[in-house]
Each structure stands twice: as C-alpha cells, then as structure tokens.
C-alpha cells in the first residue's frame, strides 16, 4: 500500500532555492496548501553543531550527519556534492558568500558578442535579490557606484574589514583595484532571531552559532507557523503528465527509508527546486509515451547548457604585516572587472577576491638542509618565516556553456529503485574554449601587476582543479522566450507544462563569474512571485 498526499503546490527539494520559494508562497499565497518533498531527512541539529565543528576541526569529520543518500549520486564532474540530499541541501555547507551578478551578465551577446543574452535583465531581478538578501540576512558594503549597480543598501551592515583585510585593501589600491567587504549571509549584527557572527572561521562547512544563514532556519519558521508540510525521506522519481492537457497531475516516488513505501503526491502546481543536477534528472526520468525524451523537453535542451565558472588563484607576498587567523573566511571582493569592457577586443570578465593567508609562513617539517624540525628548532624556524604579509587572491572568470555541456541518464549505474543516475560533463562553448589560455594568462598578469604595484611579489599561482567541473554550477533547464530554444519561460514556467515550474539555478542561461547562491535564491523568489500572481509588471526600460 502506498501513501497519497494532496496539496495546492508541491515543491520538490528543500535547499536554499526551495526554502525561498516556500517562504514567498507562504506569504503571497496564504490560502494555498504547500507540500515540500525532500529525499533525505534532517541533518545535524543546531545544538549539535558546536560539537560537529570541533570534530571537523580535529579530524576532518563530516559535520553533517545523514546528509546524503549513498546510491543517489551524479557521475562525472559535478563540483558540488550531488548526493547531498537532506533538509537544507548543499546550502547547509555553504560559506555564506552572497554577491549579485552584474548587469552585464544578462547581455553577454549584446555587449560582447559571446554566449547568449538572458530574457530578463538586472532590473527584473533586483527586487528579488533585495528580498533574498533580506530573507537570508546579507551583510554587505555597497561598492563604488561605478562598479556596483545595486540601488539600495544591504539589509545588514557589512562584516568588518578586519585588520588584515585593511592591510590588503591598502596594498591592492596601489594597483587601482577597488575592494570592499564581501557580501555574506552572516549576521554582522543580531538578525532574525539569530546571533551576531563571532568569526569562528568555520562558516564553511558549519557555523556553530547560527550566525550564518542556512535553509533549515526558514523551514523551522515555516513549520512553526504551520505554513508548509515538509515530507522528508521521500524521493520523487517521476512526474506524471496528463496525456491530453500536458498538465502535471502527480509526482510519484518512494520512501528512502528501509520500507521504501510508494508515494503519490497530487497537486495543482509543481515547482522543481532540486538544483542543477536533480531538476534535469527528474525531467529526463519522467519520460513517457508522449514525452519520450522526458518532460518539458520539446526543445531537447533539458540537461544541456550546464554552466559555471573556473578560477585562477594564487598567493602574494606583500609589504607590511598580516597575521593569519584573524578571520580567515572573510574576504575583500572587487567586481570592477565584471563590468569592464572587452579587453583588447577579446572577452574577459572576472571577479576578484582577497583573503589573509599563512602561505609560506606555516611550520615546516624540515629545514633547507633536510634536517627534521621539531621542538625549539621548529619554533625558531617558524618564527623566522612568520613575519610579513601574504594574501590569497582568486578570480572567477566567465565560462560560457556549450550546448553539449550536458547531463544525461546513465543506465549503467542505477539507484536502489533501478533509476539511471545522471552523468555530468561540462564543456566550454567555442569562445570560452578559444580564449581560455589567454584569459588565464591575463589573470596571472593582473595578479603580478597587483603584487608589484604594492611592492610585493607572487609566491605561487594555481588554477582551479579541472577534475571538479565548473564552480557554482547552474543551467540544464535554461530560460528563454522561444520554446524551441529554452526549457522554461522567463518566469520559470516550463513551456510544455503550464503548471510545472523550474526554480533557481537550473533556469540560468549562464552562471556569471561570482558565487551564484544568492542569484539562485532570487530566481526562486521571482518564480514564486509569478506563481502566486504577485510579481510586479516588468518596469519600462
């Protein structure tokens, strides 16, 4: 015997996008019954997180207990940990970094002749970025007006530019690089019932105080207010489309506990908020006689145009003094290079981040002669190298997705129910592939210029690890106005099924060159507003 549930709106997934969608719908559609379905269960409770943090620091143990399903994993290069199926999703681990994209992100084709334009612009998303910042509690500092397009202050004052970052800010200013406190979903002051940040420096992977936003905060609030029903340990495995109308009539699946009970969820609207892997995966799994390539896939683009970015990083030695450990996880950011015109006719956009670093100033195990160092010799050697200032520097740069940047079903590997698991392979489009070497050379040259202008030098350079895929991945159900060239419309509603919506990362056309989580959340809020019928008409441009 299976279990059947009914709701007005069914949200699949419980990560940060799903939490935003649910919160928005609970507010804007108060009469609607909202059912949220999560394949995993609850992970480490807030009261257990200080101990989990201690054990992570001591041993490298995973602080998030029961945060995945062993047999539900994507193959290939996924960067994020795709089996991360528990309440709150991967954003339980996130570092809380919450920048917006820039206006240029939405007009890459028009401005630079590369990639594709989005069907929406910065101004369409701005109210939802602000709402996401308010719901998450983002602390930030507006950058110089020339470089920062936002039209209002952050809801929380910025995390302090600490003593170390102040030294770094002064150093890189000599290269005419403007930096500001990285916007972060961490409480610079008490907010939303959560404490002020105490710079415990383990934001990633676990904040022991609750000062960093995690989606379980929203779920607990919604559950306490009885505004949602959260169905945990249920894996949605198929969506059923009505053969005549195409409307989705049910989501079906099974419990992920030992019983594995069959589950059927009937709802008026369905919102897929499972991130870039599981959203496309579910649509492809849901193929039927009328939809042999999967649901919402008339365009053939479900699972395609997976997008992300890469980075070039390094370590700089700079004049002055930087003391490692003041606040290692907070950084300076510059977005001035996201807004730059094309460089000598070739395309390069990137962000820039700077952290304090201990690189080259850590204790070492042997001296230059190979003599083991321990005791007094180790401390003396450490002290001799501890002075000065080092910084970690990193730039994410745009990588434009190829149509074949793709998620497919792999019948060779199945979960306990026999469902093929996704296989993911990122691929650069032609412009990105052609420019990659030049782009990375330019970034290395920029780091060198910054170091020299400050009177320092480059200690070490490194690229992102290629075996991880692209960072902050998105796409797979890209939005657009043409049903032949996109999966969902500019609101997130799928072209093929009037009551099926894609929220957050999967609807991205491209993935900018900065952390994407805030934009995933904002996109989810915007989709929820359209679903609830509360979205404002697009302002005249």
């Amino acid at each position, binding site marked *: 015997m299976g279990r059947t549930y009914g709701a007005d709106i069914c949200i699949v997934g419980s990560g940060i996008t799903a939490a935003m969608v649910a919160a928005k719908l609970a507010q804007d559609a108060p009469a609607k019954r909202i059912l949220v379905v999560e394949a995993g269960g609850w992970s480490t409770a807030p009261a257990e997180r200080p101990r989990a943090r201690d054990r992570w620091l001591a041993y490298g143990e995973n602080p998030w207990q029961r945060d995945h399903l062993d047999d539900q994993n994507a193959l290939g290069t996924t960067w994020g940990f795709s089996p991360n199926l528990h309440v709150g999703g991967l954003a339980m681990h996130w*570092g809380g970094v919450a920048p917006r994209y820039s206006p240029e992100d939405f007009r890459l084709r028009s401005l630079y002749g590369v990639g594709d334009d989005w069907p929406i612009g910065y101004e369409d998303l701005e109210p939802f970025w602000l709402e996401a910042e308010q719901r998450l509690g983002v602390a930030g500092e507006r950058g110089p007006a020339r470089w920062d397009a936002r039209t209002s202050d952050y809801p929380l004052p910025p995390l302090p530019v600490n003593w170390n970052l102040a030294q770094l800010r002064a150093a890189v200013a000599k290269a005419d690089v403007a930096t500001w406190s990285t916007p972060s979903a961490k409480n610079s002051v008490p907010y939303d019932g959560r404490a002020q940040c*105490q710079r*415990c420096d383990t934001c990633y992977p676990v904040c022991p105080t609750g000062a960093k936003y995690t989606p379980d905060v929203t779920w607990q609030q919604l559950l306490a207010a009885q505004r949602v029903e959260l169905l945990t340990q249920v894996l949605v495995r198929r969506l059923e489309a009505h053969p005549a109308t195409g409307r989705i009539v049910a989501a079906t699946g099974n419990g992920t506990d030992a019983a594995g009970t069959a589950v059927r969820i009937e709802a008026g609207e369905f919102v897929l908020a499972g991130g870039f892997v599981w959203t496309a995966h579910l649509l492809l799994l849901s193929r039927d006689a009328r939809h042999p390539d999967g649901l919402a896939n008339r365009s053939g683009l479900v699972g395609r145009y997976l997008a992300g970015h890469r980075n070039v990083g390094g370590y700089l030695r700079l004049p002055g003094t930087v003391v490692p450990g003041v606040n290692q996880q907070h950084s300076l950011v510059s977005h001035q290079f996201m807004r730059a015109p094309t460089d000598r006719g070739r395309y390069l956009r990137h962000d820039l981040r700077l952290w304090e670093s201990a690189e080259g100033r850590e204790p070492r195990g042997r001296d230059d002669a190979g003599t083991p160092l321990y*005791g007094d010799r180790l401390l003396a050697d450490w002290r001799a190298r501890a002075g000065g200032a080092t910084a970690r520097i990193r730039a994410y740069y745009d990588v434009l997705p190829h149509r074949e940047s793709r998620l497919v079903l792999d019948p060779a590997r199945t979960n306990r129910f026999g469902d093929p698991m996704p296989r993911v392979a990122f691929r650069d489009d032609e412009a990105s592939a052609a420019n990659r070497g030049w782009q990375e050379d330019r970034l290395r040259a920029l780091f060198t210029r910054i170091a020299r202008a400050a009177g320092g030098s480059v200690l070490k350079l490194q690229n992102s690890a290629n075996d991880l895929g692209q960072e902050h991945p998105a796409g797979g159900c890209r939005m657009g106005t043409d049903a032949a060239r996109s999966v969902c419309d500019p609101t997130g509603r799928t072209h093929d099924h009037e009551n099926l919506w894609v929220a957050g990362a999967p609807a991205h056309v491209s993935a900018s060159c900065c952390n994407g989580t805030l934009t995933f959340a904002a996109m989810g809020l915007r989709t929820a507003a359209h679903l609830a019928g509360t979205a404002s008409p697009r302002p005249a441009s």
Partner: protein
Amino acid sequence: MSDALDSSRRTLLKAGAAAAALAALPACAVEERRPASDEGRPADFDRAVLDAAADLVLPSELDLVQRRAATDAFVRWVEGYVPVAEEMHGYGYPDVRYLPPDPAPNWRAQLEGLDLLAQRRHGARFATLDRTARTALLDDVLRPLATDRLPAPLAAPHVLLALLSHWVGQADAWDLAFDARIGRNTCRPLDDAVRQPRPLGPRSLG
C-alpha cells in the same frame, strides 16, 4: 577550491582522504562501527616514552605543565578518534570518502620501537637517557620521515610527528609563533577583528 578553504586545511582533508582510500566501507557498516559515546578507546601509549619524547618535540618555551597538557590533549585526540568516519564532503567532492583506520596501534608500536632502540643503542630506557642521546635518537628516527610541510596528524607517519602536528594545529601554537593574541579558529567578538592582535606579553612564556 572552495571559497573558504586555504591550502593548509585542504591538505589536511586530502591527506585523510588518501589514507582512507584503504578503508572504503559502505556507510551502513560505518554506522555500526561508531562508538556509542565520546569516550573512545584507550590509546595505551607508553606515557613515559611519550612524555620524554614530547619534552624534545614540543618547544621548551612551553613549561613542563604546558608540555604535559599538550601531550594529554594529543592523547585525548587519539582516543576520541572515530576510525573510518565520513570525511567532510562539501564542494569539490564527487562522492563519499572516509577517514583512515585507527592509527593508535601503529603509534603504540612506534613508541615501543623507540624505547627498544634506546635499549639497543644505550642499554637504557628512552625516558632515562639524557637530552643529547634522546635528540640523536629522534633525529635518526624522524630524518627519513621529514617533509617540508608537516603532515596532518592523521596522515603523520610517526606518532611524534602526529604529536607535533597536533600541537601546531592549536591556537596557542600560532599565538606563540606570531607573538600575538590571535585566537585562530576560536569564536571571538566580531568587532575586535578591526584591531591588530595584541602581543602575547611575558605571561606567554609560562
């Protein structure tokens, strides 16, 4: 690389993962092996040997009480270890990885070996040797194992390197090296971050 991890922490985790490749067990088996409490298993180290070695491995700026406290903390750390627990797997991990098996048996044997070596060479227990003789023994044992970057404790090829690595991972060690009250990896008032950490002052020497 994730936003938040610099190379040192990532190295620690990767070192654990490499060792753990030997111990890839299904998650259900891992759960069954977890101890019911934090008490763990006794390390059963020969404390006389460990303490005598710790007096050389740890800096002499730590007084005897501080050295014993650091050694006690290391032993508690060993005893609190859960073998083959899940490794952290956030960004940059495609699958579940596990920490290494219990290093304590090997480390016990290394302490016994050090004591036996002392008896072979000097006809006396390691703990009874003078500082010069003990230092010579440690140099001989550790020279072939020494690397530029200190290994993470769990990846240390010798118990004394694990002890040393455990100590340098503590906030107090960094404060001592940088002569500043940094409080690395401790929860501290946010507003104090804008000030340069104060020097330790004379009390730091114990």
